[in-house]
């Protein structure tokens, strides 16, 4: 199956989506929190931004990220005829 160009293209796009998603995950799971000291200088609605990102902001990004990923991956499946039969 992998030998057909269609299958190779399918796996290439799946892999790219995986890396994209993991980059976003890394940024919000780790990278932004390196800058907590600077971000805490900014206060929005009482929340120091650095604290907010760890307490809520990154979590919201994770939830949206997974739904976005799953919609995107479903589209890739369908475009390459790899989706499940109904």
């Amino acid at each position, binding site marked *: 199956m992998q030998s057909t160009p269609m299958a190779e293209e399918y796996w290439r796009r799946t892999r790219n989506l*995986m890396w994209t998603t993991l980059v976003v995950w890394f940024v919000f799971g780790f990278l932004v929190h390196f800058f907590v000291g600077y971000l805490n200088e900014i206060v929005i609605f009482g929340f120091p931004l650095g604290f907010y990102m760890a307490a*809520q902001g990154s979590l919201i990004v994770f939830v949206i990220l997974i739904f976005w990923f799953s919609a995107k991956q479903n589209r890739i499946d369908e475009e390459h005829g790899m989706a499940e039969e109904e």
Partner: protein
Amino acid sequence: MRDAFIANLGRIYALYTGTFLVFVVVLAVLEQMGLPPTVIGYAFVILTIAVYAGIGILSRTAQVSEYYVAGRRVPALYNGMATAADWMSAASFIGMAGSLYAQGYDGLAFILGWTGGYVLVAVLIAPYLRKFGAYTVPDFLAARYGGNLARLIGVIILVCCSLVYLMGQLTGTGIIASRLLGVSVQVGIFLGLAGILVCSMLGGMRAVTWTQVAQYIVLIIAYLLPVVILSAQLTGVPLPQLMYGQVLQRITELEAANSGPGGYLEGIKAHVVAFNVRDPLNFFALILCLMVGTAALPHVIMRFFTTPSVREARKSVGWSLLFIFILYFTAPAYAAFAKLEVFENVLGRSLEDAGAIASLPSWIFSYGQAGLVKVCGEAAASADAVLAACQAAGVSTLDFANFSIHPDTVVIATPEIAGLPYVIAGLVAAGGLAAALSTADGLLLAIANALSHDVYYQMIDHTASTKRRLIVARILLVGVALLGAWMAIAAPAGILIFVSWAFSLAAAGLFPVLVLGVWWKRANTPGALAGMIAGFGMTAFYLVGTQYMGMPTWFGVSNISAGLFGIPVGFAVCWIVSLMTTPPSREMQAFIEALRVPRGGVMVADKHAD
């Protein structure tokens, strides 16, 4: 309980939620008419456990695929709720807000770590294992890595991680039941055990799934209600997650004004400032271990085997995290409201005479009697006890250094802090019980299924009939439950640290071979065996060495983040050994290619499936 049941899920659970709310309101009315708190406590425990048990009995099954994967018919949304209940333990429900109270920003490592891992589950693991159609995680290891040796190592790692975790849940169940019913913790553990077994024994995964959905509904209502009311009282807006920003501001002001020499907050660590408790290395290492551990804990992964399709499995991870998020983004609000209450109404008060002490908020004494609140180093059982302890210590003003609360108190005491009737406190305890029971159910099933399916059926007697397999599965379930309860009773209190170790052990032992098994065709049997043993061994070595052998830590990394060393070792050893040995066969290459595309249905057929 056939497809009509699936079609009517929304109506059934809406009715259930409505009935539960009516039940709470009725109890509240009865309380006003003079129903004593003990009866309310009993009503909550008995009625909720009876409902869970009823669901368990209605969901009984004689089919193997129903028993192991709920017939693969659980819609994404409901699997999300079940996963959220499966995931959120007594520690999340009761303990986490208290950790945030004590640690401020640095406690948020748990919030980030226990949510971000779901991104890894969705992207790297769950859809592919669902496509394979495994009953258990070791099933997949056996198929991908040449048979029963990989299966056996997988089972050993699974049992090590899940059993200590199960023990923690049983202890949690015992503590909550004992507080609610006034029985001893040991009796509480066995009461909880009975509830867990009735839910899971007859219907396996199918029963656990529908019970966990019911438990999620109870626990999320119980978690949100007190803090929503408290937020409305203090800020006028019933959205604690939004309004605690103002509370944080107030906390920061009070800290700045009173933390100087002689101030009642002298020596306090600022709540919103990072890296007071953990240095950056430990903060990020803990996040990494918790995230990777989430993606490797078998009781979480196996929940995604129950969805009708690969597509639903992916979406279901999103729902799971959304339902978890609702609790986790509320926990810091609990911590902030509790801290403000302590700063404004408790600390800085005079301890000169019994009259002044007696005017402290009443929750201090209610929880002081249970030893959860300590003033001047002694349990704050009464105004006289506090006076005696503080006079002995020579303390005349209650300050930060002389006041401590047990982490569990923050969530439990909030109803009383808000001045709510006892029925709300009973509701919170029922929520904590639901959280502990649902996680214990999932863990118990993960262990018992690995023993009955992987060890008994796949390794000992592959010709066993359906009936025999299910009998063995149920006997093992009861056996594991009793073992867990015995360990929970026999174990010293400090053993709860094992729970956080489970994450590092799973992360290092299972994550590398699961991920490489899907994403790297070149990973082969010797590589995987070596990788599992090396990753798990490295982590266990660091844990045991630093905890018991007096081994110095490496780079100051605390042993709850032992996976920081084990995870890279697991990946590296699997990679190097795979490259040094022969590549997987052509058949294995085809197997991996089929694994990677959703089309084509599950890849394993169970000859005794029905």
